[in-house]
């Protein structure tokens, strides 16, 4: 079941690159909508916060790549470092309170350690961000249109007010907001939740970014609106050939729209691979837990939901060895002593960080996943 032949559809070079094989570029195979060179490449990213209670290791050695036209999903429980990772890509961590190390390459430019002013010119132009709650993410005192126009003008200093307005109205129209010219002059509180998120997307797209980072873009929305927003993102991605990083709690969303998946636990990547690999042939006990704690991806109402027992660990005092061991029913002595490295499972591009021997893991995986009647 886990043979390399079972790799998901799609070009083989579309998988995230394994860390440790930083440059695995293959000879260029003509692939119409997928670039050969990843647009975003994150290598061994570490983010620490110095707080009064101690050093918080929020992100601890995360690596991944995203190509244009592809979507990477990042999943993990609350506090696993998903948002901290995405904010690091935009260089939004306060250098006085945090330490960011590693390499983040966006369109060939390495960002970590660059002065604020250099990174700033990338923000919103090459890399745009969509946040979870559009009501709090939009400024309550300015009209929606003005906020979009502002995002345009900051990167098009020669564009006049009128041009920026036209552009903003166009974007509102493009994301499916009716009567865009009238909506331009309304305030965020006059929009519905779904419309606000569309406006947020319009703002993110106004400068034709090559990469969009969406941090739980649909969590605050109800299910139908959620589906509309995801469709919209997919359409726009197809049109503009954008790379997308989609952060979410919702494995259903992951199954629906992502190509590749990164599973994070306590600031580390525990499993990584194509969406099919991670969702259907998960190899990590934590991923099994995540999969059992969500309703069946087919919406099977009879499935029993089994939350992962226990709570995520403190990021100041991480458990030694595998950070998941206090909650893992398969933990052994080695789990408590040694941090598992992210290693290939054998399937192309599928990586897992767990000490379980591969054959035992495969056996357990079959059991763990069938228990749940997963798709």
């Amino acid at each position, binding site marked *: 079941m886990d043979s390399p032949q079972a790799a998901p559809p799609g070009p083989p070079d579309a998988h995230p690159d394994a860390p440790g094989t930083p440059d695995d570029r293959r000879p260029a195979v003509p692939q119409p909508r997928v670039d050969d060179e990843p647009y975003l490449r994150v290598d061994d990213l570490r983010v620490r916060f110095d707080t009064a209670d101690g050093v918080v290791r929020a992100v601890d050695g995360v690596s991944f790549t995203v190509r244009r036209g592809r979507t990477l999903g990042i999943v993990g429980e609350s506090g696993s470092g998903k948002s901290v990772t995405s*904010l690091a890509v*935009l260089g*939004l961590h306060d250098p*006085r309170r945090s330490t960011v190390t590693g390499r983040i390459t966006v369109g060939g430019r390495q960002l970590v350690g660059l002065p*604020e002013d250099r990174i*700033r*010119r*990338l*923000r*919103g*132009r090459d890399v*745009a*961000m969509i*946040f979870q*709650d559009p009501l*709090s*993410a*939009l*400024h*309550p*005192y300015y009209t929606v249109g003005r906020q979009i126009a*502002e*995002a345009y003008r*900051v*990167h098009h200093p020669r564009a006049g007010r009128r041009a920026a307005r036209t552009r903003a109205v166009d974007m509102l129209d493009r994301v499916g907001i009716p009567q865009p010219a009238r909506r331009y002059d309304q*305030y965020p*509180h006059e929009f519905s939740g779904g419309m606000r998120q569309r406006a947020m997307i319009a*703002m993110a797209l106004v400068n034709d970014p090559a990469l969009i980072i969406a941090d739980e873009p649909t969590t605050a929305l109800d299910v139908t609106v959620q589906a509309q927003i995801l469709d919209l993102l997919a359409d726009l991605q197809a049109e503009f050939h954008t790379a997308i990083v989609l952060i979410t709690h919702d494995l259903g969303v992951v199954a629906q729209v992502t190509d590749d998946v990164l599973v994070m636990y306590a600031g580390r990547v525990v499993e990584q691979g194509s969406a099919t690999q991670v969702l259907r042939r998960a190899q990590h006990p934590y991923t099994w837990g995540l999969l059992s704690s969500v309703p069946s991806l087919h919406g099977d109402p009879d499935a029993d939901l089994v939350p992962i027992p226990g709570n995520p660990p403190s990021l100041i005092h991480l458990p030694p060895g595998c950070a998941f061991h206090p909650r893992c029913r398969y933990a052994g002595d080695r789990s408590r002593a040694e941090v598992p490295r992210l290693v290939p499972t054998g399937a192309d591009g599928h990586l897992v960080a767990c000490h379980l021997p591969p054959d035992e893991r495969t056996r357990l995986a079959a059991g763990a996943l069938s228990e749940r009647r997963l798709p």
Partner: protein
Amino acid sequence: MARFLVKRLFSATLTLFAVSVLSFLMFFALPRDPVTGMCPKNCNPERLERVRQELGLRDPLISQYAGYMKGIVTGRDLGSAQGGRCDAPCLGWSYVSNEAVSDTIARVLPVTLSIVVPAAVLWLLLGVGLGVVSALRRGTWLDRAAIGFSLAGASLQLYFVGAVLLLVFVYTLRWLPVPSYTPLLDDPVRWASGLVLAWLALAFLFSAIYARLSRAQMLETLSEDFVRTARAKGLSQPTVYGRHALRAAITPVVTIAGLDVGGALGGTVITETTFGLNGMGRTAVDAVRAGDLPTIMATVLIAAVFVVLANVLVDLLYAAIDPRVRLR
């Protein structure tokens, strides 16, 4: 908007009406006979009776009140002992100072205005500026200095600060004249040099409060999602801090400033006393000491007008700043 204004002005009028009735009742309906307090020396019963007649104290309360209010609106005749015709806004006659109360007010209100308005501009600029800078430089020596400043401002008393300022700038360095009031239009330089210490003392104490308030507001706003959005758009720091963060942080500061200024315009007793300036505050206190009822009544009413107006103004400002506020 127009409807809001009409409604607010109506309720403001009601409030002022209530204040006027209450103060009127308090001063004129108290068991203590106001006339005894007003009568110059050598009062005999006949004279007292005549004063009572002139003051209209023998009339029913309602018609006394109606007369007083009519005087404010249209002016009225007070009789020869009280200076005869009293033009609107007539606030009665003071036996203590032997002049129409409106003349007293016309003399002392500009003093209070001249103290409060420049001081308010100073304390807002200084307080908000300091608060914002220390929020942006949180944890640095600048922030700590600003916190020290706020603590000093919050714990020192005005008469102490005033006395130190006087001692240093007037009596030791002799850089400034002894504080006094010169009308602005007569001589702007003397106006300013006579009042600058009062401005500084008031501004120091108030800006400490405003620095603390705006620092807290700014820190809270800086952690808001929309500030993160502004940064993620690629806006420069000045734009993020000024146009996005400060705009939201300033709202409660504006509210409190409006009410503080409104309150201060009713009289800044301690400041006026410390610097020997004769404004509304001292006039009110002196009137209370002398039992000068018409003056007390007038100062209470005027202070109430300022507070009520400040409230309406703050609501308007709030709506101008925050589009979510609907003026109804």
